[in-house]
């Protein structure tokens, strides 16, 4: 009797665990988005044509254009190390706070390899001074100080 109950509990546990694992696997399969740097995406582009991608880089200097009439933001994400860039179009959404040329940006959207263009569905900016600057900054880094 006791043993049988124990088996039942273990079986219930396994079923639940499998259920959760299944949820996770299906969920990941369906939603997981691959992450690129602009340099890699440009090279690998054809393989990712018409697929969801994430790109992390810098907003290329002088590239951003805000078209208020058409509610449209266009810019290029530049690789942090090379000169490779990917064009981005972001429509019908407000420009995020702290969006300035040269700043860090994270883009998620569908990639069009022929035009090297991401139609973005999500845009995140990061500004070092926003919440937390690099703690290792030396005291003379950003502000000017007077010596006594």
């Amino acid at each position, binding site marked *: 009797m006791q043993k049988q109950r124990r088996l039942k509990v273990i079986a219930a546990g396994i079923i639940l665990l499998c259920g959760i694992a299944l949820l996770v696997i299906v969920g990941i399969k369906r939603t997981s988005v691959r992450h690129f740097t602009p340099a890699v995406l440009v090279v690998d582009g054809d393989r990712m044509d018409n697929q969801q991608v994430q790109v992390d880089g810098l907003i290329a200097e002088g590239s951003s254009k805000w078209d208020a009439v058409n509610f449209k933001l266009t810019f290029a994400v530049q690789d942090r190390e090379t000169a490779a860039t990917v064009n981005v179009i972001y429509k019908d959404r407000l420009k995020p706070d702290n969006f300035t040329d040269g700043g860090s940006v994270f883009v998620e959207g569908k990639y069009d390899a022929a035009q090297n263009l991401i139609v973005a569905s999500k845009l995140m900016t990061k500004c070092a001074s926003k919440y937390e600057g690099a703690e290792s900054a030396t005291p003379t880094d950003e502000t000017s*100080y007077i010596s006594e």
Partner: protein
Amino acid sequence: MTAEIGQAAIFLSVLSGLWAIGFLCIGLRTRNQNAVRSGRNAVVATFILVSIATGALIYGFVTDDFSMRYVVEVSSAAQPLLYKITALWGRMSGSLLFWLWLLTVAGVIVVWQNHRHTKETSDTLSDYALIPMAVVQLFFIILVTGIIEGVYNPLERFPNGQMAPDGAGMNPLLQTPSMAFHPPTLYIGWISLTVPFAFAVGALASGRIGSDWILRSRRWTLFSWIILTIGITLGGNWAYRELGWGGYWAWDPVENASFMPWLLCTAYLHSVMIQEKRNMLKLWNILLVTLAFQFTLLGTFITRSGIISSVHAFAQSDIGGYFLGFILVSTTGVIGLIIYRWKRLKSANRLESLLSRESAFILNNWLLVGLTLIILWGTLWPIISEAINGQKSSVPEAFFNQIVIIPGLLLLFLTGAGPIISWKKITANNFQRMFLLPLAIGLASGGLTWGFLALKGTTSALYSVLCVSVGVFVIAAISAEFYRGAKLRAKRQNTSFLNGLNLLIQRNKRRYGGYIIHIGIVILYIGIMGSKGYFLLESKSLRMGESMEVGQFQLTMKDSFEKEFENYRRTGVVFDVAKNGKQIGTMEPARHFYYKTGQGEQDTIESAIRHFGVNDFYIALGSIPPNVKTGGVVNVQAYYNPLIGVVWIGVAVMVLGGIVAIAEKSEHNNDS
């Protein structure tokens, strides 16, 4: 001078921390009361020393001491006094000191509670619990001394007597009351979880693995749960009002980091009842509380190590590694103790049936822990995917939104089924008496919801129908519990029904407080269902005089304004708002342009929110061109968020239930 005193206090607290650990260990081992007392005093000394250091830092803020590096980074002369003080936890070094200070406060309270307790009985459990507390404190003390690379001492001055003319100041977005109090609320919640963990370790070390450690730390756990509930909600509420994206929860890694300990704490609050009632799950409880504590540290690791990118954009630093190291070392310690006490951790009782209250509790635990693991997996997916196939991927919000639905609905069902199912084994009688009516009412309301949504033309409303049916089932089941209990009391005491209800709750605050929380959960679910499932969003470029439509609402841009304030300029537009063609008033969304913050110029969204009962209408604007009155275009994003007010109400009811439950004294335990 004060900064130097503070620094000295921090270094001295290393000694008092070591003293506490050493003397408590030796004293408890050799049953030397004097050594134990000395160890306790060292815990108090640590508190005093850390308080001095924290006080010195606050003094630096208040007196605008810009020779101190931390003060320069988070404060400025023009910052209002309140935000000068809350700058204490504005960045990493200071928030670690603040965390440490709260830990020492918890340590002193444990000493004090023990002092009160030992007047009646002689007992060493609390003294054992002080050892892990002191170890955790020591870890934080070492972090704030600044001897570890990557974290500096918050009381450090610039070298060579350098001094900044003014500080950089705090980000204006953070200068709102709810942002000032959101981080410390979470910290307090996390730190309170250290105490039940310490008692679990104390129980293992002392060999007293009964339910004593659970009873002794019960109020700490509940307190932590209440505070975490408030803290997480404050964060969501702030994001909703300040960030201009119309939502309150986005499954950001930092949000997940605060949510996972909450889930584990909830699981633990339930599983301890099984140990108290049926003397089962001893090992599980220890593991669960350890896990909950470790997740409070893991959150810091995730957000501070820079391994996961997050909108919270914390600095990447080495500190994550130290947290991970501490997590591994302390977990290994706990596992060692568990192996050492293995024989005593065996349960006296076994599960008798899969359909029983015990099973409902266990299923609740599995689901909550399962949910935690799902969220952890999703949060760490960028690292995991890179490790598996060398290709970094991540999962969007949609992953979490979809995956929590099924476990979430099962959990919701349990909030109603758990309280009414019988212990040991469900009987036909129990099922008929307790389940039939609530189930029928639940199914009926599900049907009505389906009809209502179908009439409105909503298809694929399966989850909404399920959510409503299960939610109504829970409310019916729990109301019936209240009703039966109150009627019985009223009859026995020969008094009115309301008096009976009051007596019922008074006599068993823990149980009925818990039921009130369950009702709050149902309300919260309904709010989430409405605001996540049925929100509307419209974006449009508008010129003066032009209109747009969002659901039943029409917006017409009719005017613009500009106003100068002390450190920012407010520009915005005025909308005429009509509902179904009927004029109902105006709304004035705006932008704030900060130019005196010391952090460079900053242009922020100041959304306008209007409540229609529990539904919100929400407008956010893009920047406003100077020629707005003469044909310039403004970008408008307007949201209709149905039932969002219900989210806040649900949380308020949960907190209320928590307060009722925590009012019950720990010592007696009279669940009927």
